[in-house]
């Protein structure tokens, strides 16, 4: 093996090590970011539902239950406005959010950018709830960074 061959080998080896390090670092950073985003989302949903509203002096969890059972227009307008305000405060900078829950008679659907998103592409948290009208449903909260172009349908 000539000296030139050896030098070429060193170059190729260096490039390989750089590529492996870079991909490992990227993968690790993404995993940590995923754990953090999931944790943040879950806490955001739990805290939001515990928030004591000015409406009827009840928390959002109870009010969403009432809304999904009664479909009261006045309650819907006020609750949507209040929940949106708290979501804006909790929301991470440069992130979008969508909150959704539906029952046979009512719907709550709050978002800051996109009304429809492919849920597989965003960070999603959900809580199963039993409504005062004995129906069961889920409250979903999804968030995603502004930089991510999320499709409306999967």
């Amino acid at each position, binding site marked *: 093996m000539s000296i*030139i061959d050896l030098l070429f080998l060193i170059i190729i080896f260096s490039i390989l090590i750089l590529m492996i*390090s870079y991909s490992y670092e990227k993968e690790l950073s993404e995993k940590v970011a995923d754990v953090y985003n999931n944790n943040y989302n879950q806490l955001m949903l739990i805290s939001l539902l515990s928030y*004591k509203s000015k409406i009827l002096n009840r928390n959002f969890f109870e009010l969403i239950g009432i809304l999904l059972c009664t479909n009261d227009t006045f309650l819907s307008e006020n609750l949507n406005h209040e929940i949106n305000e708290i979501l804006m405060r909790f929301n991470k900078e440069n992130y979008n959010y969508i909150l959704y829950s539906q029952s046979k008679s009512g719907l709550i659907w709050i978002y800051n950018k996109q009304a429809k998103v492919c849920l597989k592409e965003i960070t999603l948290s959900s809580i199963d709830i039993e409504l005062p009208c004995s129906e069961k449903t889920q409250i979903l909260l999804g968030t995603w960074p502004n930089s991510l172009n999320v499709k409306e349908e999967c």
Partner: protein
Amino acid sequence: MNIEDLIFTILISILVGFFIVVLFTKEIEFATTIERIDSEIDAMSFASDLMENLSEFTGVIKKEKIDNLQIETGCNGIIFVDLERNVNWSFGNFSNHSFSLPFLIEESDNTYAAKVIFLVK
């Protein structure tokens, strides 16, 4: 070895030297990133435990608990920020690198949207 071979060998040696310098620099950067990620994981685990202890899985922390908080380890510093009343409570030292978590402050039967910022070592 003729003069052309010599020049070629010198050029290749310079290229190899350049790659080795880049490799070392990148490896140092890589080690720093791994160290940062390690600190982040430690801090996140600490943050998660702290928030669970303070809020008992409800996302609501009583104001008195923040007033009486003693932070011993896990992060360089912690800031509880009341987003509605624009006040905050700081503990520990400060650094540039941070992450935050949402929660509610409960005081006098009211709740206030808040964030806790963890400053990573």
